[in-house]
């Protein structure tokens, strides 16, 4: 029986949320092909959270354990996946920082083509068919993968994790092959406060030049805190001005986000900004200029001074959450 490999991710010994999205996407492919799903966990020692993999559609959980696998190990991870990869009809990665580095390594080692950052996938005539945004999201490209092992990476926050599959995954150990370690990840420098990445948050609250000065981002941080599990994003104008970190920039030269709710506050809605957020499920715009282009893509808009609207909004959300 054909099988699909879902490559999961862990950080500091805990499975990352995007892993469940990868397994969900792999399950969709497997159902189309009448195949099973193997979820691969690479780490050193026990990884927390793997019990959820069966519920999301994994038939087996493969564990590749190695002392050098605590942090991301580009050469070791790639060698391990390549050693088993040819047995699979498809391999699914996340188009995360790790997946973007790892998937092309595996594809080159296996001599198989890779479709990155896909936002939709299906099986047609026994082949994997994917849709992926190109030209900064201005065009959608539809590709048919015809290799013996189809390799794809899925855009985070796009394949909603579905934990209703109710499988009990069998645990299997995978042997890590000999590999030459050419690149070493020495450490992860974390910011002083843990920040939720805009690509992974369910809600993104972004601010632009309308915020007037960096200190005023406190208003957005307050709103994000009231909403819970929300990340604060920014337009390029305020990143270039040094008000916010580059990691928070949404848009063509920043990050592409697809949260279920996106707030654009004091952001005009330039085409390059839209490129990074137009696939958000619901967009809310707050802008004092009723003709701002952001209102053309927003589902809901408030025309008004953000300095009056934001405190009230944060207040109302707090009230709602307290109910």
């Amino acid at each position, binding site marked *: 029986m054909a099988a699909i490999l879902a490559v999961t991710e862990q950080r500091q010994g805990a499975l990352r949320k995007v892993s469940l999205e990868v397994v969900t996407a792999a399950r969709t492919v497997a159902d189309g092909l009448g195949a099973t799903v193997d979820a691969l966990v690479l780490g050193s020692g026990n990884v927390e959270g793997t019990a959820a993999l069966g519920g999301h559609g994994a038939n087996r959980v493969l564990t590749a354990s190695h002392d050098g696998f605590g942090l*991301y190990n580009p050469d070791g991870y*790639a060698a391990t996946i390549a050693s088993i990869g040819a047995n699979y009809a498809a391999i699914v990665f996340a188009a*995360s920082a790790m997946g*973007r*580095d790892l998937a*092309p*390594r595996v594809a*080159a080692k296996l001599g*198989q*083509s*890779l479709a*990155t*950052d896909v936002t939709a996938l299906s099986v047609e005539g026994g082949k994997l068919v994917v849709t*992926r*945004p*190109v*030209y900064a*999201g*201005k*065009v959608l*490209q*539809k*590709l*048919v*993968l015809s*290799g013996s092992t189809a390799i794809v990476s899925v855009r985070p926050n796009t394949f909603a994790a579905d934990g209703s599959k109710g499988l009990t995954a069998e645990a299997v150990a995978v042997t890590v092959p000999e590999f030459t370690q*050419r*690149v*070493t*990840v*020495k*450490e*992860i*420098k*974390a*910011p002083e406060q*843990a920040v*939720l*990445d805009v690509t*992974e948050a369910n*809600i993104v609250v972004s601010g632009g030049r309308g915020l007037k000065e960096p200190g005023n981002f406190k208003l957005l941080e307050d709103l994000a805190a009231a*909403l819970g599990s929300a990340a604060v994003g920014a337009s390029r104008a305020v990143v270039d001005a040094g008000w916010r970190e580059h990691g928070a920039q949404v848009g*063509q030269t920043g990050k592409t986000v697809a949260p*279920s*709710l996106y707030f654009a506050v004091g952001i005009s809605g330039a*085409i*390059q900004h839209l490129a990074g957020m137009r696939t958000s*499920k619901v967009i*809310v715009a707050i802008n004092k200029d*009723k003709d701002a282009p952001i*209102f*053309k*893509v927003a*589902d*809901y*808009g*408030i025309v*008004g001074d953000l300095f009056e*609207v934001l405190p009230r909004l944060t207040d109302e959300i707090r009230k*709602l959450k307290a109910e």
Partner: protein
Amino acid sequence: MKIAVCLKRVPDTTAKIVVGGDGKSIDEAGVKFVPNPYDEYALEAAIALKEKAGAGETVVISVGGDSSQETIRTALAMGIDRGVLIQGAGSADGLEVAKALAAEIGAGGYDLVLFGKLAVDDYNHQVGVMVGELLGLPVISAVSALTVENGAVSAEREIEGGVEVLSCSLPAVVTADKGINTPRLPSLKGIMAAKKKPLESKPTTIGAGGLTLAGLSLPAERQAGRIVGEGPDAVPALVQLLRNEAKVI
């Protein structure tokens, strides 16, 4: 130090993109083409590293049609020493492009091979890493800070909620992200000098690969929604809509 930079000619990011009549390509009429913005970071890194070393050679390599000559000249005007155009049709399959580049780079004796992290046309985010793997070289991708000293590379890359610090030794492949440097603009003197710099052209055949393009389409336009109201008084109505209609909070 001998450094190669792989450069792709792409539509200007502000260009309006229209799908051609065949439904599989874009209509190039009236579209301005530019060097891929991420490759400009790679070009700047190469030029600066050679300047710092005080010696060496920088080479720009592009796979494309005749029109890519102009793009290569832009790189030469920035300060790259010479250019190589590998003439072949592009491919949606990054692995096929990577094979053509690896064939050229493998025999070149480069200490460092630089790429952009992604090309803003196909958004493949893969060719540089693949070339490194095909050549058996260390690869560090999407680098936002780079130091090359005494044969060693140390680099940083942004990951979700942090920054990864990596190291490897030369020869190596590095792909560049924003933040790594600020690319210089070609000077008038540079533009004049570029006209006389060597630009070699050689043919290649890009394989079909394992990805078949079924078609290009425009994403569904987002419908403009509604203005809920003006000023803070509109907030309660917005919160109700988010809760009861959109069901997102």
